[in-house]
């Protein structure tokens, strides 16, 4: 069983613990320097029933939006102050869960491929077909939610001590307390103390839930 399969199998359990983010609630940020394209995109995406916010430049967007919250960005690539590529690089650098859909006017395929490698959700060539846009937004919504969850688990994981991280990794490997004590050259009792701390800090009710979160973190 792969980590993704594990994650998808237990997604419902995780969503019960972490505040669930519904795709319809995700804001679609539209960034384009050209007003006509910006407003027309806003009109189209609003027509699909999604909440939108429009930005005239990526710089303003980065200044005014909390990029650690899940959201979908529909951004033009060619912009004067900050290009779509630079925006994606910034998001990636800051570990933002936001999913970016690039809009290309002149079919800059190489730029689009680079952006996909950097973590962009999709790219669309203008003029945009509404069905293609819907698919891209749906995928981006899933992606940003997943990234948000991973961000939250990583945040919990970072609270573990080094010893606790070692114990968590041993648990991920399917070892029992006795084996963990042998591997770490500590007593079984000490293992049990660390294990309870890991379960508490990772907000997990039982070992399977902990393993699920750790797998998601690794992926």
């Amino acid at each position: 069983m792969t980590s993704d399969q594990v994650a998808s199998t237990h997604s419902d359990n995780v969503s019960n613990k972490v505040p669930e983010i519904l795709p319809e609630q995700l804001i679609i940020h539209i960034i384009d320097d050209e007003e006509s394209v910006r407003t027309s995109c806003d009109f189209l995406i609003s027509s699909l029933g999604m909440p939108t916010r429009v930005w005239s430049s990526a710089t303003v967007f980065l200044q005014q939006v909390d990029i650690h919250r899940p959201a979908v960005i529909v951004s033009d690539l060619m912009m004067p102050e900050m290009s779509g590529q630079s925006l994606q690089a910034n998001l990636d650098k800051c570990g933002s869960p936001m999913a970016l859909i690039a809009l290309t006017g002149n079919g800059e395929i190489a730029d689009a491929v680079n952006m996909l490698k950097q973590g962009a959700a999709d790219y669309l060539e203008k003029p945009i077909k509404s069905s293609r846009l819907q698919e891209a937004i749906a995928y981006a919504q899933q992606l940003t939610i997943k990234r948000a969850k991973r961000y939250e688990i990583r945040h919990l994981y970072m609270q573990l001590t080094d010893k606790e991280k070692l114990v968590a990794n041993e648990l991920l490997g399917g070892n029992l307390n006795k084996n963990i004590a042998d591997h770490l050259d500590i007593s079984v009792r000490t293992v049990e103390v660390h294990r309870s701390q890991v379960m508490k800090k990772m907000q997990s009710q039982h070992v399977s839930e902990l393993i699920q979160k750790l797998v998601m973190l690794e992926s």
Partner: protein
Amino acid sequence: MQVWADKRKAKFMHRRLKSLVTLNAFRVIFAALLAWSILSKANAQTYYLGVLAPQGETAAQNRWQPWLDELNNQLSDDTVILVPLALENWQQQIGAQQFALVLGPQVQFIKMNTTRWRWLATLQADTAQSDLIAPANDNAQSFDARKYENQLSTTVILANEFNKLNERVSLKQPSAMEEVASALWVAADSDIYRLQDLQQRSVAAVDADAFGGYLLGAHLLQKNGLAPNRYRVQFVGYPIENTLHTLASGKVDAAIAPLCLMEEMARQGKINERQYRLIHPVATVSSCQSSTGIYPNWTLAATEQAPANLIRQINQSIFGVVRPVNDKNSLRQRWLPPESSTDAERILYEMNQHPAQKPLGAHIVDWIKSHRLWMGMIIFIIVISAINYGWMSWLAWRQRQKILKQNSLIRGYEQQLRQTERFAVIGEMSGSIAHEINQPLATIQNYAQGLLIRSQQANSPKKADDIVPNDNALTDNALQQIVNETERVAAVVANIRSWAGQSQANEVKVDIAATYQQCILLLGEQAVGIHFWLASDYQHLTLPNLLLDQLLINSVTNAAQQGATNILLRCQAEEYNDKQWLVLHLSDDAGGFDQAQLKARHLPEILPSQYATQSTKADGLGLGLMICQRLCKSLGGVMQLNNVNVGDELDKIHAIDGKHLQRFKRILNGKIQLTQTSTAHQPLNFIGAQVSFYLPLPVTDRDADSGMSHKYLK
């Protein structure tokens, strides 16, 4: 006793032997005398005397045979035979060394190799004082012979005195074969009175080598300012009577005749002396009329074939024997010691015919031979220099070929680069255009799809919460945006059309000749060997920047690619369709357009494809002319194609005011330059193609001097 008897016997034998020896001696002497007699008869030789026969063989025979017979009588055993010789082969026959004796005018010997000859005697001139007559023309005056004695050599004078004192005989009639001088004769009614009157007239003469029959007369004319090229000489040849016969026939205006020829022919009834007149008469000791002085007479010479015995006998015959007074033969010939030929040689020198006067080439050869060392060095230096020059020229030529090849490569690369740049510009421009159009299209599509979705949602049976409220204001706004963006696209398209269809260049004043030259230089290697003509009524035109350059370079390139050797540009104002136009006619001599091309007047239809970049007769006229047509149209003008007669077009060019007439020929001489020339060049074909641009343009000036500036044609 026996001894005595023996002595007696011996004495007898001795006497007998002595008598026998004496007898034999007589026999030997007799036989020797007999043999000498026989041999002396056998040694009798026959010698030949070559005599010049200017009046023909018979006349010479009659003239000299009596004297020769007398001479032969005085010779012991030898015989001299007379051989008349014509002047034409005189030198060749004597040069063949067949003659022991030669008799002729002294001047004729000057031209021969007479190194081993001996001069025997000179014929005495007929100098009877009683016959010294005045010239027979109106200006003649009697004269005293003593005044002219200084014209005669001392020998001649002494001989004359000797003859008069000793012989006291009546003088014979003068003959043209005895005295050497020239007489210039004209018809009695001729308008020629002076030597100068002979200028540009025809003159008969005997031969170019005839002394009395030409050279003396020609020398006289030359001394009087009439070189041989200032009158027409007609040589009539021998016999010498031909010269006066030609004058009598009226074919010539004057005749140069040997002295006494007229008198002799008149005496013989061959000519009427009264019908002719002597010009430039001079007084001589001769009884005949003469235009020149008399020169040394005929001379008898012995060649190397003549033995000393013969010469001695002839000398004795001529000078040693006193002839009887009544001896008729003695009247015929009076001989003097040989005369000097200095005067005759001077004449030949002045006429540039003396054999010692070597031609310039011979002098040069002699000089070169005498300075052969230096000349050899100079020739060696010249040869080395020539080889060096040739070597350096070859190196320079090779270097030039390399440079030309590299230049050609660079030109090719430049052309490719320009083409690539052009494609890049087109690509960039297309990208910009696509972007400009794509943005509004994207906007329109977004609004349209949004409206469609809203419309579909309004019609779907979903919950009220799921349906986006269909706000009329939003819908109106979206529709308005669609309209706005559509107009934006239309504006972009209109701008593109405007940009492609019409040049927005500023109008500038352009110099036609300078622009034409620039276009020729831009042709590069194609311009080599082409003659470019320009004739214009105007020097400057005011028109959009680079328009004239484009019109000319496209047309000139087209003509050059067709193989034209002459390209002619004519700029004139002309009336066409009831309007005045400024017309640029650009013609070539490449053979003209095909009839099919001329029939298809609309250029785009005859283009082989939209990518044609050069014109060929097979494929059509090409992009260049199509561009020209569009440029012409952009100014409101018209472009026409015609076939013209190249000669007529050249005439039109020559007919234009010569002030602006220029002709350029591009030469490749180390560097590219244009030269202005006036040399005519034969057209390659009589028919050529002509592209005419009819432009409704204002002309900046008509003529720099006329002050008619800014004349507008409409």
